[in-house]
């Protein structure tokens, strides 16, 4: 008995008993389940996209229902995308583009003020800039519509159902993203860069243009991209502020699904997915590069 227990033998040598490696027990169960879990997450995140793209490639006929996986691959439905979709896409794109630019124009100074100033009610101001994210979009939509009616009744100018009306609504939800991301970058911004520029003879405006803005640009890109995406994908606000014949792409799809569903919806959705993917990759390239540069200063 004593001879067979490794503990007794090693102890008698006066050395520490070594824990014995048991092959088989070291089967990487933890590793397998970890990777399994990760894979499941990816499948969960990607499967809706795969279904949309796959189903859009199914040939079918006017009378077939959506089919996944596709039986015969074809770009047929891409030729059947109705003009209304293209018009809606154009509107959504211009809207999202304008909304993100305006969100940056409003958001950057706001972020500067919120991060740099020492006003006592700073907390209140930053809550105001976060508020649009905390109000359900549907409520925002209703509120904007009511506001437009009220404004129209007072002035005779009704902006609901116009580009400007949609733009304001989208700007409202876009600003917080720019304030958030630019604010985060500004928190880490080394103000000595600005002092260096001033000491070298650059005025306040030149300093902002040549030093501050380029350095916080990754935050601007990220915030602008969020604002773009939020605007581009918005239904609840747009549905209230659109007018017949003047609708954004998601709202057009929404109506299309309700009234006359055919796989051309999937085809145009696939185009949007590809577009978003391209935009994302582009941003990653730009922001990634900027990040590399802004880590600068040696050390």
């Amino acid at each position: 008995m004593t001879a067979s227990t490794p503990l007794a033998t090693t102890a008698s040598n006066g050395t520490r008993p070594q824990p014995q490696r048991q092959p088989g027990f070291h089967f990487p169960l933890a590793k397998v389940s970890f990777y399994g879990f990760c894979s499941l997450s990816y499948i969960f995140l990607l499967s809706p996209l795969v279904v949309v793209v796959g189903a859009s490639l199914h040939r079918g006929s006017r009378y077939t229902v959506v089919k996944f996986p596709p039986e015969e691959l074809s770009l047929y439905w891409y030729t059947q995308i109705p003009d209304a979709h293209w018009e809606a896409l154009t509107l959504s794109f211009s809207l999202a583009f304008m909304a993100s630019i305006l969100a940056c124009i409003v958001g950057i100074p706001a972020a500067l003020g919120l991060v740099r100033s020492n006003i006592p009610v700073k907390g209140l101001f930053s809550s105001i800039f976060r508020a649009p994210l905390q109000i359900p979009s549907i409520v925002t939509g209703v509120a904007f519509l009511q506001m437009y009616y009220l404004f129209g009744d007072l002035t005779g100018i009704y902006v609901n159902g116009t580009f400007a009306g949609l733009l304001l609504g989208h700007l409202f939800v876009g600003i917080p993203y720019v304030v958030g991301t630019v604010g985060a970058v500004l928190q880490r911004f080394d103000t000595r860069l600005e002092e260096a520029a001033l000491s070298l003879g650059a005025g306040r405006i030149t300093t902002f243009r040549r030093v501050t803005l380029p350095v916080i640009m990754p935050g601007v890109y990220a915030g602008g991209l969020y604002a773009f995406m939020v605007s581009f994908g918005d239904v609840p606000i747009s549905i209230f502020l659109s007018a017949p014949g003047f609708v954004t792409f998601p709202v057009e799809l929404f109506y299309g699904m309700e009234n006359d569903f055919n796989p051309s919806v999937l085809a145009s959705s696939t185009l949007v997915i590809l577009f978003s993917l391209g935009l994302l990759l582009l941003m990653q390239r730009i922001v990634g590069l900027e990040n590399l540069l802004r880590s600068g200063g040696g050390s």
Partner: protein
Amino acid sequence: MSRVNLERVVKHYGSVVALQEMDLEIQEGEFLTLLGPSGCGKTTTLRLVAGFIEPTQGTIYLGNDDVTYVPPQKREIGMVFQDYALFPHMTIADNIGFGLKERGAGKEEMRNRVGELLDLIHLPGVEDRYPAELSGGQAQRVAVARAVAYAPRVLLMDEPLGALDLKLREAMQIELRRIQQELKITTVYVTHDQGEAMNMSDRIVVMNLGLIEQTGNAEDIYNNPRTKFVADFIGSINFLPAMIVGDEGEWTVAETVGTKVKVPKSDASSSSGEVAIAVRPERLELIANGGDGINVVPGTVSNKIFNGNLMRVFVDVGADEPVVIELPPAEVHSETGDSVNIGWAPQNGQVLTE
């Protein structure tokens, strides 16, 4: 290049006094170091000269111009920061050329000047690199080149070597001093490192709690510190608690740990309260008997530390702190626990008050 002059400058931050009335004149071409612990007001002084902050009271002159309320971009200064503050999104050439461009220099002129400056800092050929691609020492030299590119009236440096390791710091001290001498540029340098201050400066201003404690060159301050603070901050020093007990010709007689010693007469000689006898460790000896005119205090060796080129012997003489003596290792024959006499020539001691 210009003289810099601060007249009765005071700076308060709310109720906090960062700088109590300061008078300071920096000569043309002088390398002046503001030395002191953090919170002593040295950085505040530098930022006042730079124009990043305005004084609560007083006047600041650059040359003959009153610049007290002139914004930094109109002061024609060059500034070097601890963490370099190079513009990360610009190449080295664009960084160095930043101030030149602001002054409307042409492309050709800029390229030539950048080349000259890179030669000056011994870093040719890095024009097209980005700051992130440089080492700390290189980045700091580029920062200096950027600051002096358009011949500013004064060069201001705020702990520029603080982020570098020891070896590099020493090499950079020599480098910075060389550049300053070549350009003959008026320089105000801020540091808390006394070694740095002594290695580079024409004149050192020791500051504490928003006040100038002492101004002078390195030797002056080391040999004749005016206060306990200065003596302690520059180099290491022993303090023995003492009372003034009398007067003997050119010497003041003080009693410390039960022994009478002689020290040179000074302002503190008439003090009636507790004073300190200050002696540098390298000016103390271990002696067998008191010779003529030598101060002798008996004690016990409590520790010895071998430091390579010297041995530090700690002797307990009955004061709160042991007295430290630095000797060549070959001259130390006493062991821990031995009774010894420490001795020093009266002119090597000093009587100081707080």
